[in-house]
Structures are given as C-alpha cells and as structure tokens.
C-alpha cells in the first residue's frame, strides 16, 4: 500500500522466478546490458574509416531541413519532389523548420495531394489504381475476416468502419479533379 512504508510483496520469490522463466536475471547486472556505460566514445567508429564521410553527389536539388547546416553527406534519392505535391513539399522545407507545425501540416497536406495526383495519373497512364487489389481487402475472405472480429472483445472494430471512407477519399477527389479539368478544357475549347 502506498499509505504505508513497504512495497507490496511479490507472489513469487527470486528462486521461483529463476526456476520458472528461462534466462531470468541473466541481465540483472546493468553492466551486462548493451550500451553500458552510456555515451562512451567508440574509438573504432563501428567500421567507419572516415571522420566525415565522402559526399554523395547531388544530381538534382535535394530538399533539406532548415535545421541542418548543409545537405547531409548521404541522403535518400527515392521519389524526388514533383507536381503540386512537390511544390507544397518544397515550401514546407524551404520556409518552415521542424519546430513549426506549418512544416508538418504542409507535408501531410502534400501527401493527400500526392495520392490524388497519383490516382489521376494512373488513369492517364491507363493503369488505374485498383481499390480492391491495392487495399488487400481480399484477405477478408481468405484470412477469416468475419470470425477474427465477431464475438471478440476488440476496441478497433468500432472505428474500422471509417477505413473505407479514408480509402475512397482520394478516388473521389481524383474523379472530381478529372471532371473539373475536363470541364475547363471543354470551356476553353469553346472560347
């Protein structure tokens, strides 16, 4: 009880725990745990044979956090910025540090724009996104979708009904964008 000096007794003694649980107490001594002592300087640099790495060539302008002094010597080159989502991302990186909510909110907004751009693009490239295969919803039939949920005490079944709307959102937005673009083009053609 916290109202009196002593901790509540444990149900099992150390000897009982050691007998029941394989490895009990193997790392009881903190010295046996990794990274002890903390923050010791590792002279071998874990295999690095440099104090500052050679720089990876920057073949195209690479966005970076304002909180960095310079572009890191190594960086990822996957999915360079492009389109409207890319423009939003560039603003997020060029104007706002990681400390600003605007930085992250713009990046999240760009992610949603990116998904709409991708769906419109997939129609244009005649390889439309397939909401059935890409959501993997077939697993509901092959991996006990119903019995995994029915009669179970699961907290997540209450909000899983929202998921189809999150999936459909970009498709609806993409369809709206396509219709709007078509109207604009037709309108321009009549002028």
């Amino acid at each position, binding site marked *: *009880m*916290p109202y009196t000096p002593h901790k509540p007794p*444990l149900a*099992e003694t*150390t000897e009982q725990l050691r007998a029941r649980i394989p*490895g009990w*107490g*193997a*790392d*009881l001594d*903190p010295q*046996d*745990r*990794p*990274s002890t002592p903390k923050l*010791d300087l*590792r002279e071998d*640099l*874990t*295999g*690095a*044979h440099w*104090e*500052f*790495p050679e720089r*990876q*060539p920057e073949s195209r302008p690479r966005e*970076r*956090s304002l909180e960095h002094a310079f572009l*890191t*010597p*190594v960086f990822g*080159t*996957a*999915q360079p910025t492009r389109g409207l989502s890319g423009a939003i*991302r560039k603003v997020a990186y060029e104007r706002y540090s*990681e400390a600003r*909510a605007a930085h*992250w909110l713009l990046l*999240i907004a760009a*992610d*949603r724009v*990116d*998904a709409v*751009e*991708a769906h419109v693009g997939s129609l244009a490239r005649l390889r439309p996104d397939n909401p059935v295969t*890409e*959501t*993997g919803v*077939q*697993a509901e039939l092959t*991996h*006990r979708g119903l019995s*995994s949920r029915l009669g*179970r*005490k*699961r*907290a997540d079944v209450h*909000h*899983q009904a929202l998921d189809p709307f999150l999936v459909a959102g970009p498709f609806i937005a993409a369809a709206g964008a396509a219709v709007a673009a078509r109207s604009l083009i037709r309108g321009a053609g009549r002028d």
Partner: protein
Amino acid sequence: MRAMTYRGPYKVRVEDKDLPSIEHPNDAIVRVTMGAICGSDLHLYHGLMPDTRVGHTFGHEFIGVVHEVGGSVRNLQVGDRVMVPFNIFCGSCFYCARGLYSNCHNVNANATAVGAIYGYSHTAGGYDGGQAEYVRVPFADVGPVLIPEWMDDEDAVMLTDALPTGYFGAQLGDIAEGDTVLVFGAGPVGLFAAKSAWLMGAGRVVVVDHLDYRLDKAREFAHAETFNFVEYDDIVVEMKKQTDHLGFDVAIDAVGAEADGNLLMHVTSAKLKMQGGSPVALNWAIDSVRKGATISVMGAYGPLFSAVKFGDAVNKGLTLRMNQCPVKRQWPRLFEHVQSGYLKPSDIITHRIPLEHIAEGYHLFSAKLDGCIKPLILPSAA
C-alpha cells in the same frame, strides 16, 4: 525488380522498379532474401507519417545477400549473407561515435530530429526499403553484419528491429530486481519487451492489450499476466488494484501512434491526422505507474504534437525514457541470448507472405485478421 510501392493511405501494390544503384562509394546493393512488415509500417500505410510519398517502397526489417559493393567498401563482399539494422547510420558523427546509431546526423537530410530508416518516408530520409527484391544499403562498412552460421534466417530478420527494440524498451525501463513491469501492447515489440523484462530481473510482468489472441501469446511466449482493457471500465484503476494501489515500478509503451482505448484520441490521430499519434497507451502508462517510476516509450509517434498528460508525469516525478533503438549496439548481447536459447524471436512469426501478395499482408496485419502477430515477406527472387 519487383517492389512494394505505396499508392496512398491503405493502398499498396507491387510494381517493376529500376534496380537500385551505387550512389555513394560506401553503398552496397543487397538482394533481399527475407523481410517483414513492422507495426510501425502500419503508420505509413495508414498515411500518418508526414512526407510519405506515392511510389515509396517500405520495409526496414530485412536480410539478404550482397549483390554489389561501392568502391570504398572494405568489410563486405559480393555473396555475403547479411542482416541489416533498420537504422541507416554513418558510424562517425557525434551521435554514432557514442553508440547512438538511431540518432545519426549524417544520413537524413529531411529532418534533424530523427535518424534515417529504410523505407520509412522522407521524414526518415527518403530511402526506399526492403520490401523489394533489391535495396540500397548506405554505409555498408558500418551497418550490416554477416549472419552467424548458427543463426536461423527467421531469427536474423527478427533481430533487425523487433527483438532489439523490445529489449531496448525493457532496458530503458532501468528494471531492478523485483520490479513490477507493465507493458502496453502485445504486438511483437511488446512481447519481446515483456520477455526481456524477466532477463533484467523483473518480479512481475503484466501485459495489456485488447486482442485476446495476442494476450494468449503474451502468457505463453512471455510468461506474463495479461489484461484485456476492453473488459474493464477503467484499466488504470484495475492496474492500481493489481499493485495494492501503489502503481507499477516501470511501464513500457509498446503501442505508439495508433493506440486504441479512447475513440476520440484514436480518430483524431490515426484517422484525421490531427495529432502526431494517439497517446492513449502513454497516458495510461503515466497514470498506472507509481510516483517516481520510469516509463519507456518504444511505440512510434509522428512528429506532430500529441495530447500527452505531462502534468501528471511532472507531478508524479516520473522519468520518461525513449529513443529509436540503436540496433547494432544491442546485437552482441542479443546474439548471446538467442544462442543460449533464452530468446527465440522467430516464435512470434505467424504469417509468411510472398511479396506479390503484400497488399493482403498489409490488410491482414492492419485489420488484425487470422491471429496475425508478425508477417514475413518473401521476395520472389529469394
């Protein structure tokens, strides 16, 4: 090559992509022989992590065979079987030089607050990941190690993130002999954290979740007592009762950004992306421990703010410890535990899914179907 690609929230597909190339003299290209989906990949899959770009290939848990090396690589050769930590790190920056590989400052141009992680959005560096046939591995002399001859491939995959992170969770709890330890989340990290707590001398280990099949696993695999929070009007009050109203000595949040248990918190974060993460498990941890306790946060959260109960944490004098796990630093001790049989990480694997069917894999893991705890991904070229 074939690679999983992200198409927007809840949508992924497998596409043909160009083979990755050497972009830096210390790069290697690794042919992936086995990978896994991590619970934190679900945050990307659900569109929760800012700057997750369409076309991105996820996957930070993988092993493989070295296919090509850059000009300055000394420690690896083509044909070597390697396990690759989920952290990308240089080995020489201020942080790496002190063993904080997950905080490397030389690899993530997009953010200073987080190191770089394979296939984990541009917020984590913009590197494609290992749910593909091939992957670029920067700093090949620093991160990967040869898979020991005695180690199973499935154990090796689990050592690239899930087991070290779970063990690290227990380690950050600063567990002393006889401590009562409360673990929120019975997913892979929670199971490994619970198991590791015993190695550090815990006197009692309790796991809380809402999925009975995972709680069954926590009892069987991690020898833990379990509680399904759905069965209790207020799980915090139950945890107080369980400790004679003192509270636990240590709590570990192994849930992170999409915690259930409070519909408002879950929907505003996981669905509407208005918070960096749903702090339900973290708030329960804060309220379930005794004053002066330690809370270890292993769950992944996004960079936006979350409604965490800091007032209670302050008034209770809590120590909050957290970080991404510096995987390679954990390996020597964990290799010993796997070899001695104290830890058998592959015991939690429930599904083995061909890369071509990864969309179903994501769905069944996300929707918690078919008793899924840990799905492996098997590339076709493996």
